[in-house]
């Protein structure tokens, strides 16, 4: 007699009618036949062993509990994320405090080529004071305000201003012409 059938083959013999070499072996081997029959018997017992069915009330509570535990976990996960972000922010704050904020950059000075002179050096203001209707009581204004005022002049006032500027800055050689 050859070696006994392996467990894998015996299981297959339980699921379907054995054929070929397996059938031939079983026909001649009482030991393998006995093992097969005993396993079939145990399978029948196992199939009969049902699990008691809990009540419908149990299943309602079961689902409610699963849902509640999922909510709890999500809430804790959210708390964890917030805590992590807070910890990171606190770490950054401490790091900045320990190392200092660094030098504050100074206000940049007007470049030498700036077209906007300081109020006290703005000769254009004197010119404007001489314009008709100009009140000398008005306070001096910054150059940017003068620019805005010029833009708001109507055509006639603009022409008067242009003439005045031309006279003020006329080249001496041109006057001689």
């Amino acid at each position, binding site marked *: 007699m050859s070696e006994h059938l392996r467990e894998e083959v015996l299981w297959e013999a339980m699921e379907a009618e054995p054929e070929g070499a397996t059938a031939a072996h079983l026909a001649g081997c009482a030991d393998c036949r006995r093992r097969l029959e005993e*396993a079939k018997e145990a399978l029948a*017992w196992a199939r009969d062993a049902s699990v*008691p069915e809990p009540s419908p009330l149990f299943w309602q509570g079961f689902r409610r509990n699963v849902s509640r535990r999922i909510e709890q976990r999500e809430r804790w996960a959210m708390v964890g994320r917030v805590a992590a972000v807070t910890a990171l922010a606190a770490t950054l704050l401490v790091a900045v405090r320990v190392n200092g904020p660094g030098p504050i950059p100074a206000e940049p000075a007007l470049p030498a080529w700036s077209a906007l002179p300081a109020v006290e050096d703005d000769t254009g203001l004197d010119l404007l004071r001489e314009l008709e209707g100009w009140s000398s009581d008005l306070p001096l204004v910054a150059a940017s305000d003068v620019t805005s005022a010029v833009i708001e002049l109507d055509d006639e006032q603009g022409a008067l201003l242009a003439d005045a500027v031309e006279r003020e800055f006329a080249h001496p050689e041109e006057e001689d012409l």
Partner: protein
Amino acid sequence: MSVAAAFPLPDHRAMQETAPAPRARGLRDDDRAAIEACRRGEREAFDRLVERYQRDVYRICYRYVNDHHDASDMAQEVFLRAYKALDRFRGDSAFSTWLFRIAVNTCLNFRAARKPPAEELSETLPAGGEGALSRLENAERARQVRAALARLPEKQRATLILKTYHELSHEEVAQALGSTVGTVKANLFHALQNLRKLLVQAPAGEVRS
């Protein structure tokens, strides 16, 4: 208070086991829809999955530990783990196969965390003679079989539970247990041999899980 404590054990003898959820070889359309809804943040969709598979998962756990309270807690844990891992479910298998694998792993972890476990049967037992099993009434025999089942070696128990009670194919059991089809078949046969030996050796009423 746990659900198990809130709802007392049912009368085992009076209740019949209902049929398991319909088995599908691939991912069921309604499972796919529910999973996609879950991924969009619709929690109610997961409730539908729980309702669909709660009995199967509970039964796996029950057969593993042979205790209603423990099975209830473990089954809840299975669904929590599944919810957490849902993004990693690729849909290559039926959702139930994936879920049953989580269930088996949860059972294994549970038992490992509860040392010393119930005395477990060794991989091999000496053959026993005919015992008192035939004299037992059906309900009592079912109780004995459940108790014996809970004492089988881990892999054999998991294999027998998934194949016999949850109608998974050999391939699905192998997938669920990270095993091969050949090993699954061999484990099934070993499990039945050991189950029988355990039952016929024990005098009536003395198979304890």
